[in-house]
């Protein structure tokens, strides 16, 4: 493994969430689903927010989401300032019933096309020299055509 050149914050992977991060390595975005009541939850918690059951399973999501809100960031903290302008979104995952809003960057999207309601899909980035894969979102061009935009 080559030495890392990535200097932005990375996740300290907790034992509880290790399967999530391992899944990203394999291009799967998972969320915990309660085996007792069936509800999803994001971000992951050790017990279901609906029924407090700890009988949870990691389930691969479709990766399909919609932009719930966004901000085009013009001033970044630390090394992120090299990337401005970049786009932060709350991506609302397709799966229900409990809405899951994932905070992440939106990449590969021209700034004028960023909007609330934009269909997006999960993208994966292996961090050079680190044992971590990060998630972001990119426009879901197929679905954008489907909805007539």
């Amino acid at each position, binding site marked *: 493994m080559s030495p890392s050149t990535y200097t*932005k914050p990375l996740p300290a992977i907790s034992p509880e969430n290790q399967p999530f991060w391992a899944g990203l390595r394999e291009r799967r975005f998972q969320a915990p689903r309660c085996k007792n009541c069936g509800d999803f939850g994001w971000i992951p918690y050790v017990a279901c927010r609906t029924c407090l059951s700890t009988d949870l399973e990691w389930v691969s999501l479709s990766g399909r989401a919609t932009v*719930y809100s966004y901000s085009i960031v*013009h001033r970044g*903290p630390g090394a*992120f300032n090299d990337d401005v302008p970049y786009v932060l979104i709350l991506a609302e995952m397709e799966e229900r019933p409990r809405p899951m809003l994932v905070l992440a960057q939106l990449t590969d999207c021209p700034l004028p096309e960023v909007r609330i309601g934009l269909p997006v899909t999960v993208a994966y980035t292996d961090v050079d020299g680190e044992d971590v894969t990060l998630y972001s979102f990119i426009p879901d061009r197929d679905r954008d055509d489907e909805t007539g935009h």
Partner: protein
Amino acid sequence: MSMGTTAAIVGVYTTQQGKRLGRTKLSLEIEAFKGALEDAGLPHSRVDGLSPLFAEPWSKTHMHWAEQLGGRPITYLGTGQGEGAVAKAAAAISAGSCQVAVLWVGHAGGGNSPGSKPRLDSAPRFPDFHWEIQGAYMTPLYALWAQRYMHEFGSSAEDLAQVAVIHRDHAVLNPESVMGPKGPITVEDVVSSRMIADPLHLLDCSIENDGGYAIVVASEAVARDCRRDPVWVLGGAEATATDVYATFDDPWFPEEGKAVRRCTDMAFEMAGVDRSEIDVANLYDCFTITMLRNLEEMGFCKLGEASDYVREGHTNLGGDMPCNTDGGLLSNSHNSNPSGMSVIEIVRQLRGDCGARQVPNAKIGVALGQGGSIHGLASTVILARD
């Protein structure tokens, strides 16, 4: 249940607030601590309750200050936002847990702004889903809230900007404010200031500075003998509904409200006061959007109507409920935990100490703290003079 006259704020003090004061946290804390006790006319040996506003409920901080005060037993260990900490200290006093509680903050250096985050040689590790991994910080997080709010309710950048203009007007009348000396600003100044995180411009954001402050809460028996007239704690409560900027909600603007609504309703119920009776308010305005949402969640106007409410002039000095008369976090001071600054300004208004920014004959005031998440942790306190 009204708290009535069981506990009062008897002393307040603010150190100089400024960009970088060249002071240490401890020096600001001890100045504030002694200043507030002197304002109350109480010796430090009377203190038996401690509520550092930066602390875990049980912490080394309480123990350090117990020793600093002479190594006597301290029998109330609190913390919280300024408003919630005042309410809890009042409740502790009413339960007989202590007689004189001090709440305080001292802040020197560092902060939440992007400029305060250093460039590093290697990647630091944060908890799994920390916002900083995504390149977020306070301004983009509140910008996400603002963007969705504007989308749902059709508000404009100018609607947000008017908040910054009003609070600066107030700061100009506050000789101790950080931004007052820079003079008034216009809506055009705000919307043409540098975009930080769309839709929030530089002047939509609170400032960031050093500074300290302290508040002394005492029982009625003690309060009657203090140097200044007591400012009674009529009611107060705190509420939290989510985690620290990790989980975000859909819907973000439910009609029934969330933590801010809950603690505000409770505070008004305890105080036995109607919203229409409030003479002066100081509501945590970390960003312009926060102020609009505060007014809605607290029930001073309807959901989605805060821009109109502000435009009608209610929150201006001279309006029927002047808000953030010190200039707020936008133009007075954001010293990392400025929640208690709002309490102090209400105390000063009720004492009639506010000079050019005095609300005439102010009798009842309300302060709101929020933060730790977007409206996810909140506290409200209602204060009144005799």
